[in-house]
């Protein structure tokens, strides 16, 4: 493996902070844990507020539509904030600022990769999702097809992504909280698990959305404050900011340039595909399009989300450079490295700027971020179990009450699993799970979903075989890749030299769908193809689409 590919992998690792936390990259535990009381008191205020919201939401959550989709009454701006909140995880806040701190300009390149999927989701998916779907993305994927096999595929792909993502978040959360609050890892994981079960099972999507909105506002305003304080100290001059940063790095101008991050175009493009199409296959993000009343609000929500996420990444960039320029005092350093690793750059910077109190605020925001993201994931996982598996496969005659009851039980199950996995994977290298989550989302969920909306000749057989091929090839190629094969199993050079093999697995899925659809001459295939016209008209006009609940 060349040094450049190694750097690339190191950078990818850094960005996906949960895996960096878990792998222990630049993330040593502090010598002794210091209990941060201002962080804990601010966190308690946040938890109190969110529990009150849950109580408020629980009184308004009566029907299945309330539970899964907040009654369809969320506005475009609110949903835009919630989507941005889902995307701005603690991993991306601490990971991107940490990556800019470490590598300078390369951090910005990575952030751009995360953003550019959003316009595509807007142009090709958001309105159609809203017009066709009800509670889960499987509603759209299975729209005109034989329900059971597609629901099983979509639920499997959805739950796999949710569980993998949850493991990464929970392990990352435990480590982060241990560092920030001085709480014990297991205690932190149980605390997160219990809180999210409460939010989701009592307050459903309404509580989950508002927790996400509050956290997004806190995170955006906290980041704005840090970035403004950095620029104030630099006399609002980027020249001074970059100059000070370069001086602190011993005059190394390389932090201003691209440091070979995309020296390997195949890896860069494969990663780009995983991020772009993976985002369009994340069940907890797709679910948010069913919480707005119509296609108009759905598209507005992506517009706002793109704005917030883009703004956030620009702030993260200023914060990262601000950390290079300002976090210089010896109290933050352990030799030449930051205490707690590069991912703590934003946290240390907040202490430089606002002392213990502001450090407490930013730590509490980071914890709130984890809670909010884990809630969204849990709800998406529970919905796949109750709506797709229970109500559409096991018991198609289920009443709404039965389905909602199963959804709450499923929330307990997924929340419990999150706690168990969080503790079980504590000291494991979980770096592969994020790669796997994004690759499965891009190779199983996304191709079936997008083809069902755009390709009239897709059949049940094509979708099922292509979808499973994408899912299986994603799992196999990640296992044969550098993270699992080389780092975890220690089997020497990886058979598949790509950490994100999406470039290949996405193609496998699309070709599979295409080939097994055009060769499908069954009676069901005719029915599938005949159903396209009505589906297409509904996706375009919204005629017959789910409306908002009136109450």
């Amino acid at each position, binding site marked *: 493996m060349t040094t450049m590919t190694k750097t690339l992998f190191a950078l990818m690792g850094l960005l996906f902070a949960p895996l960096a936390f878990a792998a222990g990259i630049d993330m040593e535990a502090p010598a002794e844990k210091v209990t941060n009381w201002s962080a804990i008191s601010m966190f308690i205020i946040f938890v109190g507020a969110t529990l009150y919201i849950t109580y408020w939401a629980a009184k308004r959550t009566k029907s299945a539509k309330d539970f899964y989709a907040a009654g369809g009454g969320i506005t475009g701006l609110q949903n835009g904030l919630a989507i941005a909140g889902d995307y701005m995880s603690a991993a991306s806040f601490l990971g991107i600022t940490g990556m800019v701190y470490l590598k300078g300009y390369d951090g910005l390149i990575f952030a751009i990769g995360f953003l550019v999927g959003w316009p595509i989701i807007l142009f*090709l998916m958001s309105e159609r999702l809203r017009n066709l779907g009800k509670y889960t993305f499987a509603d759209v994927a299975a729209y005109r097809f034989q329900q059971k096999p597609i629901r099983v595929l979509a639920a499997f792909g959805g739950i796999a992504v949710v569980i993998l993502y949850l493991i990464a978040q929970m392990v990352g959360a435990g480590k982060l909280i241990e560092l920030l609050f001085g709480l014990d890892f297991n205690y932190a994981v149980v605390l997160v698990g219990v809180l999210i079960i409460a939010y989701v099972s009592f307050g459903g999507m309404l509580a989950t959305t508002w927790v996400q909105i509050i956290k997004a506002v806190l995170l955006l305003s906290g980041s704005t404050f840090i970035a403004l304080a950095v620029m104030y100290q630099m006399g609002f001059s*980027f*020249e001074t900011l*970059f100059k000070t940063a370069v001086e602190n790095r011993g005059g190394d101008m390389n932090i201003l340039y691209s440091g070979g991050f995309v020296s390997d175009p195949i890896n860069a493009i494969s990663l780009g595909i995983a991020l772009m199409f993976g985002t369009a296959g994340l069940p907890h993000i797709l679910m948010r399009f069913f919480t707005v009343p119509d296609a108009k609000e759905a598209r507005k929500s992506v517009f706002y989300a793109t704005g917030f996420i883009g703004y956030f990444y620009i702030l993260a960039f200023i914060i990262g450079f601000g950390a290079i320029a300002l976090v210089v005092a010896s109290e933050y350093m352990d030799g030449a490295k930051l205490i707690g690793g590069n991912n703590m750059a934003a946290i240390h910077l907040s202490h430089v700027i606002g002392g213990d109190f502001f450090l407490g605020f930013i730590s509490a925001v980071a914890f709130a971020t984890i809670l909010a993201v884990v809630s969204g994931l849990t709800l998406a996982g529970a919905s796949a179990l109750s709506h797709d598996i229970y109500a559409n496969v096991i018991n198609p005659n289920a009443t709404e009450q039965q389905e909602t009851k199963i959804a709450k039980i499923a929330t307990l199950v997924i929340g419990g699993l999150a706690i168990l996995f969080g503790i079980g994977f504590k000291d494991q290298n979980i770096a592969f799970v994020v790669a796997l989550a994004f690759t499965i989302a891009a190779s199983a969920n996304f191709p079936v979903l997008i083809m069902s909306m755009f390709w009239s000749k897709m059949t049940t057989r094509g979708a099922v075989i292509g979808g499973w091929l994408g899912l299986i090839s994603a799992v196999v190629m990640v296992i044969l890749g550098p993270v699992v094969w080389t780092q975890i199993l220690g089997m020497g050079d990886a058979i598949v030299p790509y950490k994100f093999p999406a470039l290949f697995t996405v193609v496998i899925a699309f070709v599979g769908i295409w080939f097994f659809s055009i060769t499908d001459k069954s009676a069901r295939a005719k029915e599938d193809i005949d159903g396209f016209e*009505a589906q297409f008209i*509904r996706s375009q*006009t919204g005629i017959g689409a789910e409306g908002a609940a009136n109450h």
Partner: protein
Amino acid sequence: MDQSKVEKIKSLPQYHQLVKERSGLAWGLSIAMLVVYYGYILLLAFDPAFFTTIVGGEHISIGFPVGVAIIVFAFLLTGYYVRKANADFDELTAQIKKEVE
């Protein structure tokens, strides 16, 4: 949706105009975004020297304005699509709904 409604909608000129305009705009803007992003990645991969150009003072390299411009470009594209959709597509959709409901 029953077949008579499908046939009715298919016969409306507004429906064909809606599908044609929205598809054209959506795919056109998607391609614009992909060209800009992958153009940037390929430029980084094949001409890294380009990014060492200093464009302001002594420390502002060209990568910064370019990077921020891509983020702003992505946002403006979404804004343009939403404006166009709010103005034209919703109007056409309303006309179609009026015809069939």
